[in-house]
């Protein structure tokens, strides 16, 4: 039985805050492919591509352990198997596990062949048919966990699973820009996911905007003053709320159509960089250290930093070329933030969004991403423990093409027909 998660009591300042420690992050380079697929929540193993072989490998290898071929191809494979042995670790040499014992692990004999050691959900027992999921642990590396075939009641509350996810339940969220048309949908979906509080940053509160009344009407939402283009505003809010932000959703965005020659000057480009790039940097300088210090702090530990990016951060959309460039800068900075946050275990989640259903994307044809879809996918990704999320059909299309060949994608995006 899953022990239901209890809403954490008010923090007792006299009690030690558990310091961030990590499970082992050492992996071979081949095993990093497991981490890359875990980022999207996929279960892939190496399969030998020799026509007379097809042997499935685990752990990650550099040559086939059946025929010695080096033609090993990562493929989506069945993650089902039987749990044939279990143990509960009561004492560990690693400081992360020492503070989390008893910790269950097991051996699963996969139906596709290999046996794997994995973490166990509390609802699985020896002899059970199980399914494995591939996720990132606090060290940012791939691990496998065995889940029951049928979703268990309160499955997400399981401690070992929750260590791998960024479930917003009982956590406090900061959404950075109330004026973004997605702010209301984000707040609403997060509240439905059981968060404790949603703080929504609002710049220039004297300036009216359509969703303000709707946001204020939501029970659990608090509007706070925040202008990501103003360093002192960001620092002021971090001073007051920095220790209470468990998930930060950076949805601030400045977007205008146009590339280089269609614009007469760099003023919009500067606004785009101010919000989309420097905004992220200001937020990270002010909030990241406090989040990093609270990343092991129990049920409402700081767990995720979410950047809502355009999928055109990966390749320029010349019609929004300057906006794409600011997002490419933000995307690069997010990778730097990942590296800086990895020692704390706080996950930097990138949401790559296709063109959104809003006034600045009005000239574009469908399909476009409604705010409700973005919000739903973002919350689902946090619950599932993903690191990279592609929202909308266009984003998924761009992802596929980017993974195949960034250069071919560039040729497609910059051809004569593209503009």
């Amino acid at each position, binding site marked *: 039985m899953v022990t239901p998660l209890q809403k954490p009591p008010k923090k007792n300042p006299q009690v030690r805050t558990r310091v961030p420690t990590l*499970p*082992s992050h*050492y*992996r*071979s380079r*081949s*095993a990093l492919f497991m981490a890359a697929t875990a980022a999207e929540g996929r279960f892939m193993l190496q399969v030998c591509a020799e026509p007379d072989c097809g042997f499935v490998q*685990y*752990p*990650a290898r550099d040559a086939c*352990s059946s025929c010695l071929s080096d033609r090993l191809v990562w493929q989506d494979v069945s993650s089902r198997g039987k749990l*044939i*042995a*279990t*143990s*509960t*670790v*009561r*004492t*560990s*040499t*690693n400081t*992360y*596990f020492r503070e989390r014992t008893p*910790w*269950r*692990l*097991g*051996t699963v*004999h996969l139906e596709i062949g290999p*046996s*794997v*050691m*994995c*973490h166990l959900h509390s609802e699985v027992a*020896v002899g059970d048919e199980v399914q494995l999921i591939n996720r990132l*642990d606090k*060290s940012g*590396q791939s*691990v496998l966990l065995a889940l029951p075939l049928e979703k268990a009641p309160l499955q997400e509350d399981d401690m070992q699973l929750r260590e791998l996810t960024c479930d917003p339940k009982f956590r406090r969220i900061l959404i950075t820009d109330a004026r973004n048309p997605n702010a209301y949908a984000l707040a609403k979906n997060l509240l439905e996911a059981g968060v404790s509080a949603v703080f929504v940053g609002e710049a220039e509160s004297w300036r009216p905007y359509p969703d303000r009344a709707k946001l204020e009407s939501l029970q659990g939402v608090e509007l706070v003053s925040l202008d990501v283009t103003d360093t002192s505003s960001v620092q002021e809010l971090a001073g007051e709320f920095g220790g209470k932000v468990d998930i930060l959703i950076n949805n601030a965005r400045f977007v205008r159509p146009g590339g280089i020659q269609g614009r007469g000057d760099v003023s919009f480009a500067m606004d785009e960089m101010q919000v989309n790039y420097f905004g992220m940097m200001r937020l990270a300088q002010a909030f990241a250290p406090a989040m990093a210090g609270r990343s092991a702090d129990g049920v409402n530990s700081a767990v995720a930093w979410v950047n809502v990016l355009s999928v055109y951060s990966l390749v320029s959309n010349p019609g929004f070329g300057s906006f794409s460039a600011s997002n490419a800068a933000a995307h690069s900075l997010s990778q730097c933030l990942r590296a800086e946050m990895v020692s704390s275990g706080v996950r930097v989640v990138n949401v790559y969004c296709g063109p959104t259903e809003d006034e600045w994307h009005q000239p574009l044809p469908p399909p476009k991403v409604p705010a409700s879809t973005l919000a739903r996918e973002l919350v689902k990704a946090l619950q599932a423990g993903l690191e990279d999320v592609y929202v909308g059909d266009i984003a998924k299309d761009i992802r596929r093409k980017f993974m195949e060949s960034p250069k071919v994608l560039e040729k497609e995006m910059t051809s004569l027909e593209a503009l």
Partner: protein
Amino acid sequence: MIKPRKRMRYDGVVVAAPASTPYERYSTETAHWWIAKALRQSIKSAGLAPRDIDGFSVASFSLFPDTAVGLTQHLGLVPRWLDHIPQGGASGPSALRRAARAVQCGDASVVACVAGDTNHVDSFRRMLSSFSRFAQDASYPYGAGGPNACFALLTDYYMREFGVGREDFGRICVSQRDNALRNENAVMKKPLTMEAYLAGREISDPITLFDCVMPVAGAEAFLVMREEDAVASGIPHAHISATIERHNAFAEDPIQMRGGWEMDIDELYGMAGHGPGSVDLLQTYDDYPVIVMMQLEDLGFCAKGEAARFIADKDLTVSGDFPHNTSGGQLSAGQAGAAGGFIGLVEAIRQVTGTAGATQVADAKRALVSGFGVINYDRGVCTSAAILEGVS
């Protein structure tokens, strides 16, 4: 398909000069220091000098950044034959069989085989996190229980598959403690009762405290040389009746229930000219009692799954009807890293040469020694065994 050919016997080669250092729980010394200590003791006991050693075989985990090569210069040895055996718990018989062929073929006259490791306060934890690539990728991230957790899974499976209880494992641990009390080098000095075994602190279910070896610092050594030289110098020595070695056997088994011995025992006993019933004592690799049971089965003392019943009516102590791990084994003497792969072999040499002192089994003539090493991922990869026969 190439068929294996019948092997040559180890005629004209003997094993001699067993040496063991006292074991220490934690040491500030290095592996080099411990290895030198055992090596010196072994060479001295044979009445030889370091310059007489022209073959050198080393097994150690904690020599880094050195290997056997660095040790030659460090210790001033000038061997014309050099080997480094990274087989952990299987390294004893594996070192022996390589050295025996070198001596038999004249590539070396006297090979010193030595295994040793130090144990600094934090060195065990550091070793675990980077033990092997598969361990680093696919076992250490899961609770970081180290070998305790890996063997807990095997033990859990074995217990359910064959209806084995914790008392069955306890018999092995309790009898070995009894033996260790006769061994002044052992780290465990107090008797162990079945009650105390069963009440042992939980480590990684179903494994508890007394199922686990204590990592220590120490070293073990022996010499392999021509029989004529040993006879001429009057050094007590033993013949090598047979040896086997196997790696990565039965990779298709979903979990380890048997080791490579099972593939090779016909050859082992065929070469020795006798079966398991004719040995006077058995030294198994005992990092966990479940592995002892696996060896009893795979080495042909009983059928698969029968080990618990086999030992139930046996007395495994030095004075018993089935002397086993007579120096206390790693479970009670301690696990000095790679020397854990030598402890049984070195004790067996003492036994069949009648030089075991307080742990001497009466009339011990033949000993079977078995090795098991390197939990590369989810199971032990290396297995080895040797049968020694004393010269009366």
